[in-house]
């Protein structure tokens, strides 16, 4: 009983840790897609964030400068996306793809040139990593039967960014549905012409949304390389940006369901790490590759079966051309 509880809690703990970058990226997507800009470049922005966080942290020894560099990189790429899609009415999917390919090449190229470490950054010492928050009273509470393990495995010792993500989730729900900015943001994704008629700048609103996207993807990247991991390795996002996009669609562009989808994907990921090489009753050992497929297959099944037709914000993906 005790063991089963511990196992479940460890699985949940791993889920939360794996979900954090997904949640940050997916919520980054919520802002821009709600404003009518499709961003398939979440993956690239995250990877850039991961690289620049690790590079800056490695060079300066400060995780905070790393975090700042990651956010700056995310915002810079978001502005490139905005310049192409908002200012020049470019194709949004193509712009996103270009950013993904560009960063997938740029990060290892720069890592190679700056660190001579085979396309990675050196391993970061713990002082250059984002700290984990140890809450007081682990000894005192730890002795309590059920509460103790829960406190130990799930609550305390989590990375700072995990807590920040929690705040961002709650804030997003409020911003989108309770603030004036959120109302305008949603309006510009549904009917930009109406927003324009009301005397608000569509361009300005969309750029604002993309800046938020840049900040959040930068945080997601920083978490990967300086929070969860200890340095940048080539291709370290490994499709998380795309999974975040899937979570966003599965969540129908709403914060709550999107968070749930991210947790679900992270849970399958945590599960697959546990299942590798473990024989299942009646089936035997499943080849690793099939277990690794799990999140992707699940995505396809969910998109096909449960969400039904995914209806995006109406103006999503369409450049707004002001009437002259």
């Amino acid at each position, binding site marked *: 009983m005790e063991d089963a509880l511990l196992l479940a809690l460890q699985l949940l703990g791993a889920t939360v840790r794996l979900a954090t970058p997904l949640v940050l990226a997916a919520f980054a997507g919520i802002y821009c897609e709600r404003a009518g800009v499709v961003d398939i470049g979440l993956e690239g922005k995250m990877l850039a964030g991961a690289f620049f966080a690790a590079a800056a942290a490695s060079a300066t020894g400060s995780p905070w400068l790393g975090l700042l560099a990651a956010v700056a990189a995310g915002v810079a790429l978001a502005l490139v996306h905005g310049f192409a899609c908002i200012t020049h009415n470019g*194709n949004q999917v193509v*712009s996103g793809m270009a950013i993904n390919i560009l960063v997938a090449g740029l990060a290892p190229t720069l890592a190679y040139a700056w660190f001579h470490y085979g396309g990675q950054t050196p391993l970061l010492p713990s002082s250059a990593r984002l700290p984990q928050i140890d809450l007081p009273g682990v000894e005192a509470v730890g002795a309590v039967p059920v509460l103790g393990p829960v406190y130990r495995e799930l609550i305390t010792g989590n990375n700072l960014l995990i807590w920040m993500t929690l705040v961002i989730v709650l804030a997003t729900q409020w911003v989108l549905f309770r603030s004036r900015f959120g109302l305008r943001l949603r309006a510009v994704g549904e009917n930009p012409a109406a927003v324009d008629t009301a005397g608000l700048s569509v361009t300005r609103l969309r750029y604002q949304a993309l800046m938020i996207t840049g900040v959040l993807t930068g945080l997601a990247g920083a978490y990967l390389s300086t929070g969860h991991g200890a340095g940048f390795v080539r291709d370290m996002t490994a499709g998380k940006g795309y999974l975040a996009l899937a979570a966003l669609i599965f969540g129908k562009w709403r914060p709550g369901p999107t968070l749930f989808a991210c947790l679900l994907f992270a849970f399958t990921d945590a599960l697959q790490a546990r299942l590798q090489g473990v024989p299942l009753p009646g089936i035997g050992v499943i080849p690793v590759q099939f277990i690794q497929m799990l999140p992707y297959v699940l995505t396809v099944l969910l998109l096909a079966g449960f969400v039904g037709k995914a209806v995006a914000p109406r103006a999503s993906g369409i450049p707004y051309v002001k009437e002259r």
Partner: protein
Amino acid sequence: MAQAGMVKAGGQPGMVPGWVGYALMPVLNLIAAFLLSGLVILVIGENPVDVLSLMLSEAVGYPEAIGYTLYYTTDYIFTGLAVAIAFHCGLFNIGGEGQAYLGGLGAGLVGLALTGWPWPVAALAAILASALLGAAWAWIPAVLQAKRGSHIVITTIMFNFIAAALMTWLLVDVLIKPGQQSPETREFDPGVWLPSMEQAAGWFGVTLPNSPLNLSFLWALACCGLFHLFLWHTRWGYALRTVGRNERAAVYAGISPSRQIIVAMLISGALAGFVGVNEILGVQHRIILNFTGGVGFVGIAVALMGRNHPVGIILAALLFGVLAQGGAQVSFEYPTINRELVMVIQGLVILFAGALENLFRPQVEALFRRRGAAATEPGRG
């Protein structure tokens, strides 16, 4: 999507010549992409002019290099056509990577099975098998899009990941050559290898340099011709393009969009699958891991730059072939530069030629309009 800007280029009739949109704008955008690439090369501490000129000379400077460049071009023609046909139906097929991977499985299984058969039989069977598996891999996302409304961009991306895992499993656990460590199949019987261009030219007494270029290059060119015939000279092509232009109008015309979506994706997947013929039957002669290496994504850029037209696609594929071959060589010669630099240049080319295609348009059009106005002024007076 990509042509929308083209139509607008002639907004003021007779003022801006057509070649401005088709030739001048892409060239300007390319120059911008290369200038920025030069900046990146400067940042990593090399001389951009030296690197880029070495790249060019290593790609087209001597006959052997041209063979290598055309071999890469072959892949890009296939994936470019694949993306373009989906585009014409209004679909974004990002799954070329997975479809090409599965196509390689089809070609490879034929190569493994037909030991002792003459190569023309193997070549035909491989073309069929790679088309079949490539199409099958595109079929599921197509059906999900057409019948269930799942987002095709997402499903095709997911199918890339699933294909990668599936192929790894097949190569590690199933098809691996017995008693071997590295995950690849045994080499095919040399009799079924697709002849290289050097060999083929030899039949006619022509000497060509040794390179991986093989007969599938000719098949790629043939596919360009068939693509053109199908899309603009058959009623199937007409129906497909109608759905791409205006789905609602298509419904009124009695065309079923979901049917066209599936047809377009099947052809798209088959075309991407042909990469497997070039790579597996033509060059590697065994199934190996990750032989696609991003060709599906480059295909998106090729289709965009080629304006979804076969002639444009050949030219754009040539450009990316030059980048691939030149980039590979540069990374050998410069210790500070690795192969990823090519991805940087590719990314910038896609960004400028694809997403920022309108960047210089207003200025250039204004320039031509002013000149056009100046030229017509005296005549009017």
